[in-house]
């Protein structure tokens, strides 16, 4: 026996070693090489990506990433000079920081001059449809010319009149006015004041600093985070009436990641502490506790490593969820150590392993099937969580079956659990009857509840309810919205085979968008084609200008120029015949920055751009606009994520059903029909209990609670599997009490860890924890009673 055991132990130990080294060492190598750990706490990343095809998805991701890097710091004070001076201090401290790609405070007046020069240079090409239509008739051309003269002699023009000889019809002035109106309608309420961008709201001045985070600065849960630097710089300056208003996704991400880190620390510490106390109370020895905690830490390290290696980064929510591993992993340890400590019929570690192997293996398989199925969910975060748990639990299993048997057993006289003496079932207790009654009560109660509250049974995801800003972050978000008057929450993505194709589609879209938003406040938008028309449109503009040329002599004369200027004008017009503007051409920096988020350029061989409405004034109309062209997609981030989560929830339910069938089939290989049906009834009850309690509480079944439901499948089945294994042994000795006791301990430990998740302030984690806690309790009660 000894000869057989030793090589088997060695084999297990070798598998354990290879498994863990193969995962942990490469991860350590990557981290040491990069000298940083890539955490992800982007709120949008924890939600599914819209189902809009690969290339569109890439465009969407690029845009989300860009907007997710923008921060606005508004420095407010009653006195503009004080606000500006403080803004300058902040700017000086962060402008050269590597945590920012760019920081801007000053509004460059010269930049506007570049735009004036630009519209003059391309004056023939920039007329809009109104002007083109007007110039299509002789009378219209005459009116246009008259209007230009009136403008030249009026009290006010946007541009200098020094180019009148080259532009007697003031085409540049016409386009400039259109550009400025577009810029004003599509941007924030901020406007230039004393070289900075400022706004006055309810008697207070707000000076704006805009920053774009660098990769280093975007790293959350990291000391080099740009938001942390902003707070470090700004907080000491927030005195004497100065108030900072922070706006942008990074502030929310920073806050959530900080909260998440704190929650992880608190939940992990409290859970571990509770487990340590519980285990010490049971075992009265430090060894099982130290070994169990070591096993958990190793599981977490393994899970972290494999997730990091496979995904290149780890979402902070995966770590929050990962704390639940503590509860799952410790189950194996508990079952082992209960037998190690009190099952005197087993005299060697290998015998304990053999004794437990079927139960542990079935438990592992059922749990792993559930996690494995989640790996196929079309949602990155869920994949991360599934991989994290899949490997964590396997690591724990491997540690228990490989290393634990190497531990020497306690001396014979110490192989007892004092607490177990009090763990007696009352004489009247008839397990068979109680079990059946309990099951019937559960079914009856849940079905009755569902009958009463069936209208509340809904699969509905509302993203707005998943994350709720609180305190200062919320106050700042609201105030920033009021001050900036800017809240784009949806956009059109336009695809095309060429730059020209995209611009033409954009123009057609913008035309329809303008009709929808005519006269509406916040009906503006930003689009590349507002500033850089398609070549087709530029050609139309040139054609229209031709109709003005016969009027050039009179026009120039009215402005005081001789007829010799006419030929120069016509020569200039002809010379520019093939001169067109393109998004990749030589356009002024000021305009480039205005469309920087809108022109996505080439991605995977196609071209993309964004049309960003200032607000969604009419969602249905926007959708209809997009529906008219298969190359246009309208995305309302909040609505789309909700819809995608609904779809994903339903997919998960299908996976859930598949998992159920697979597990039942697997169990049938090991058990007879009675045991199989008994086991199979547990998941059904779990679903009924969770659904009925949620329905009675008026809570929608949403993505995260359904995910919790599928996870509790694996965990909840463990109890009944261990119990059936125990029953199959037909052992009437004291040892028969060990398994129910181990199940009780397992339940308590797992319930503590998932119960802790239910206390999380993150709605997703809370729903997940609550769902699992309810399911586990159901599974436990149905098993133990």
């Amino acid at each position, binding site marked *: 026996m000894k000869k057989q055991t030793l090589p088997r132990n060695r084999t297990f130990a070798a598998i354990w070693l290879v498994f863990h080294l193969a995962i942990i060492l490469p991860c350590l190598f990557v981290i040491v090489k990069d000298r940083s750990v890539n955490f992800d706490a982007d709120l949008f990343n924890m939600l599914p990506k819209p189902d809009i095809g690969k290339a569109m998805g890439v465009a969407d991701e690029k845009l989300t990433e860009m907007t997710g890097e923008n921060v606005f710091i508004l420095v407010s004070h009653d006195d503009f000079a004080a606000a500006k001076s403080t803004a300058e201090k902040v700017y000086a401290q962060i402008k050269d920081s590597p945590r920012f790609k760019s920081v801007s405070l000053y509004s460059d007046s010269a930049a506007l001059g570049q735009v004036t020069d630009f519209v003059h240079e391309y004056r023939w090409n920039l007329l809009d449809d109104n002007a083109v239509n007007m110039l299509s008739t002789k009378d219209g051309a005459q009116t246009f010319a008259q209007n230009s003269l009136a403008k030249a002699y009026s009290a006010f023009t946007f541009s200098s009149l*020094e180019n009148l000889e080259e532009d007697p019809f003031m085409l540049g002035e016409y386009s400039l006015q259109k550009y400025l109106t577009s810029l004003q309608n599509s941007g924030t309420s901020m406007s230039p004041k004393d070289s900075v961008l400022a706004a006055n709201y309810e008697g207070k001045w707000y000076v704006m600093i805009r920053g774009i985070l660098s990769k280093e600065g975007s790293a959350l849960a990291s000391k080099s985070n740009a938001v942390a630097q902003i707070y470090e710089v700004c907080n000491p300056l927030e005195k004497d009436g100065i108030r900072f208003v922070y706006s942008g996704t990074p502030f929310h991400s920073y806050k959530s990641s900080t909260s998440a880190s704190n929650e992880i620390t608190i939940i992990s510490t409290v859970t571990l502490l509770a487990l340590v106390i519980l285990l010490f109370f049971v075992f009265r020895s430090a060894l099982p506790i130290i070994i169990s905690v070591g096993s958990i830490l190793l599981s977490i390290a393994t899970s972290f490593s494999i997730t990091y290696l496979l995904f290149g980064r780890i979402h902070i929510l995966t770590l929050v969820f990962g704390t639940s591993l503590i509860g799952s992993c410790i189950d194996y340890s508990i079952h082992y150590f209960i037998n190690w400590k009190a099952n005197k019929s087993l005299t060697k570690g290998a015998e304990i392993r053999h004794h437990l192997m079927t139960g542990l293996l079935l438990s592992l398989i059922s749990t792993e099937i559930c996690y494995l199925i989640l790996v196929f969910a079309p949602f990155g975060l869920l994949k991360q969580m599934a991989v994290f748990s899949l490997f964590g639990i396997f690591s724990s299993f491997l540690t228990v079956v490989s290393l634990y048997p190497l531990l020497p057993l306690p001396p014979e006289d110490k192989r007892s659990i004092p607490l177990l003496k009090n763990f007696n079932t009352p004489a009247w207790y008839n397990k068979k009857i109680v079990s059946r009654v309990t099951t019937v009560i559960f079914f009856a109660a849940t079905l009755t509840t569902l009958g009463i509250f069936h209208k509340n049974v809904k699969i509905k995801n509302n993203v707005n309810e998943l994350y709720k800003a609180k305190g200062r972050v919320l106050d700042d978000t609201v105030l920033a919205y009021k001050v900036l008057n800017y809240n784009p929450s949806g956009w059109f993505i336009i695809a095309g085979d060429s730059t020209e194709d995209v611009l033409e589609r954009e123009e057609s879209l913008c035309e329809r968008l303008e009709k929808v938003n005519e006269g509406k406040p916040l009906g503006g938008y930003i689009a590349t084609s507002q500033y850089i028309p398609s070549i087709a449109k530029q050609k139309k503009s040139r054609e229209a200008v031709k109709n003005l040329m016969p009027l050039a002599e009179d026009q120039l004369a009215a402005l005081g120029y001789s007829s010799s200027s006419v030929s120069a004008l016509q020569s200039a017009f002809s010379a520019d015949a093939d001169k067109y503007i393109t998004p990749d051409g030589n356009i002024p920096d000021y305009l480039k920055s205005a469309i920087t988020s809108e022109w996505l350029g080439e991605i995977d061989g196609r071209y993309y751009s964004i049309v960003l409405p200032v607000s969604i004034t009419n969602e249905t109309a926007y959708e209809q606009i997009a529906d008219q062209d298969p190359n246009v997609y309208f995305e309302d981030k909040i609505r789309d994520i909700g819809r995608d989560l609904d779809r994903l929830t339903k997919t998960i339910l299908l996976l859930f059903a598949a998992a159920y069938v697979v597990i039942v089939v697997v169990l049938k290989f090991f058990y007879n029909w009675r045991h199989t049906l008994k086991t199979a009834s547990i998941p059904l009850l779990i679903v009924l209990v969770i659904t009925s309690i949620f329905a009675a509480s008026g809570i929608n079944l949403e993505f995260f609670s359904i995910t919790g439901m599928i996870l509790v499948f694996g965990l909840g089945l463990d109890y009944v599997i261990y119990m059936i294994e125990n029953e199959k042994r037909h052992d009437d000795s004291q040892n028969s009490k060990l398994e129910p006791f181990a199940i009780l301990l397992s339940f308590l430990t797992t319930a503590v860890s998932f119960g802790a998740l239910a206390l999380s302030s993150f709605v997703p984690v809370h729903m997940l924890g609550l769902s699992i806690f309810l399911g586990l309790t159901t599974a436990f009660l149905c098993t133990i009673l």
Partner: protein
Amino acid sequence: MKKRIINPVFILFILISSSAFAADMTFDSVCAQLAQHPNTTGSFTQIKKISAVNRSLKSSGTFIFSLEGIMWKTEKPFPSSLVVGMTSVIQTTPDGKKTVIDASNNQIFTSISTTLSSIFSGNTEKLYSSFNVVFSSDGNRWTAVLTPKDKTVSAVMKTLELGGLSTTGGAEFDTIVMTESSGDTITYAFTEQKYPKELSDNEKANFTAK
């Protein structure tokens, strides 16, 4: 570009200033006189001098300054009008088409309304916070040269020079010379100023963006 929108404000400033007069003339005393006349109407002649090409464009018309805003109605050689209200700028072309620029969220226009209220309330403190003022007088003639402190404004307009004559009944305002940063100048000469206590309904209608 946008910065040019401020010009009429200063013009208004000047026109309002035309009523200012005191024996010991100071800028403060001129401003104090402004608050006495909520409305000023009259005729103007405008000469735009384009230095780069050494040319001038001359036009004339009528104007209104009031608490509602400023109206600049060019009559010759080509008719047009420009109204700078508290929340919008309205341009009307010879064919009667109106272009309305929303100014409610525009800082420059907000500063215009602030300047207006400062003038009408005689709040020179606020004006001094926006401009460096050099005031001088020579006999009956007075001149105030205003240099904007705001760099955004000064990037377009270098100085604004106001001039007028002093009389025993008050001050007669007659010129404005605005020098742009490009070196171009716009000179206004004002005549036939009147100070009605209230504007007529037709005059008021000019300030409504419809």
